């Protein structure tokens, strides 16, 4: 499979995520869209990893492995982020009983 397919696929997912962030008001959904963006990145990283592996396997049997490890770390971070993010959203919900991001706009100008 040529790499550009993966690039386009990932970018498409990434941009869908961005579009989701832009179009939705529900904090949770926005957060999910961000997760979608991260997954797009992960996919691309794995694809690159395999691409580099194919190119460099002759000299280095573990060529490209770092890409996949990076994905692992992204997942780790994402998990941590989710816990914090959801805590924040829950805290907000407790106070205002809404998860609408536009609901809170005291801070402006």
């Amino acid at each position, binding site marked *: 499979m040529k790499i550009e397919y993966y690039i386009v696929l990932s970018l498409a997912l990434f941009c869908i995520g961005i579009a989701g962030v832009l179009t939705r008001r529900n904090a949770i959904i926005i957060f999910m869209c961000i997760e979608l963006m991260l997954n797009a*990145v992960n996919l*691309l990283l794995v694809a690159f990893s395999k691409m580099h592996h194919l190119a460099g396997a002759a000299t280095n049997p573990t060529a490209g492995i770092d890409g996949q490890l990076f994905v692992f770390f992204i997942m780790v*971070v994402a998990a941590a*982020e989710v816990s914090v993010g959801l805590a924040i959203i829950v805290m907000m919900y407790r106070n205002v009983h809404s998860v609408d*991001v536009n609901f809170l706009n005291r801070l402006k100008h």
Partner: protein
Amino acid sequence: MNAIIISAIWGVVMMFSGVFSKSNAVVRIMALTGIALLLFVNVLEWNGVQLFHVNVRNMLSFDSFGLFFNTIAFGSTALYFLLSGRDMEKVGLHVAEYYALIFFILCGISIASSFNTLLMLFLGIEIISIPLYIITGTDKRNLKSNEASLKYFLMGAFSTGLMLMGITLIYGAKGSFNMDDISLGTYAMTPMLGAGLLLLLFSMAFKVSAAPFHFWTPDVYDGAPTVFTSFMATIVKAGAFIAFLRLFEGSFEGMHPQWQTLVAIITAATLFIGNITAVFQQSVKRMLAYSSIAQAGFMMLALVAMNGMAKEGLVYYTLAYSLATIGVFAILIKMKDYTFEGFNGLAKHQPVLAATNTIFLLSLAGIPATAGFMAKFYMLSAAVSNGHVMWLVILGVLCAAISVYYYFRVIQAMYFKDGDTQQMDTTPGFKGLLVLMAAFVVLIGIFPQWIIDKLYNIF
């Protein structure tokens, strides 16, 4: 490595100190001990003493630049603890946890100042960011704090996404996360490399609150408990800048001409928006938020210029900026009223606070004989010596002139207007420390070289 490990450990220690002691004083003393220890071990490392023998596999590299910055960051934090530690206790019950989070952030800063691979950069930035999301929201009953926290989190996560996409594209192009590999032969801006660089640039710009990625800054700084705003606006921002500089110097210096214009545009926008918007603020806190954007614009000049002077200057700038901002915030926290009117007549009732505040503000405005001037001088010199961005330099000084407007509004309020007496719980120690800081600001403003040399010699 010393700093990373000790700060992480001390973060855990602080967590437990909250469990074992209900006394805030004990926690505070623990924290001060920790920061002193941190400072100490960092200086030790600077002098070549490694407490831990860890094979970092070329993922981190501890150069004197990073270590020097760490020293500044830890020193500033120590001052911050001393000045504003008590005020942290007013935010909420989890004092020990706040300290723990701050130590974790310091750990992230240590990583960000010494990373040698994009992975460590990513981790470092995240270790800084995630605790920040939390301490922004620590004032849980305060809707502003909630809002700030949520905004910060959503946008921060978004920018993380951008950063990761950038890293991925660079990985795609160069096949490695290691900066040495990336910078190898990186002279032409090929599409994938370019796109990756741009995305990284945007996400880093977000972290240092450079326009047009600065939107979170005013709201978050405004909404966060003031005592934490102080920390965020100074040490954290400085750390992000060091990471920014490290990244672009280490990875993309070969392509400097290709991205210089873009960074110059971002710098110009930052300077402009930061300064212009600060003019119309009514709250000093929010004004300081915008001013931190404006100061970021000046620090961005280092990236635009990207030469020896810029690097040296950026460290100096972070020092000057952090000291002054911590001082101003420490005083601001004591105020009942955060508007400009709240400062009316302060000079009459609290001459020491007013005088020191004036020196800090003068330093922020970049008036000679304060550290802020030398900092701006370094930045301007770096940009001028670069030679390609004279327009930016001129815009910079015009913006600096605008900045005088809002900084001096505070001075005017304190000195030239009459206001009510305010009861403020200030201790002699607090005032003494402020005076010392102000003196230091003036001293390094007049003898920067001397001070820096001395620092080098002592440590």
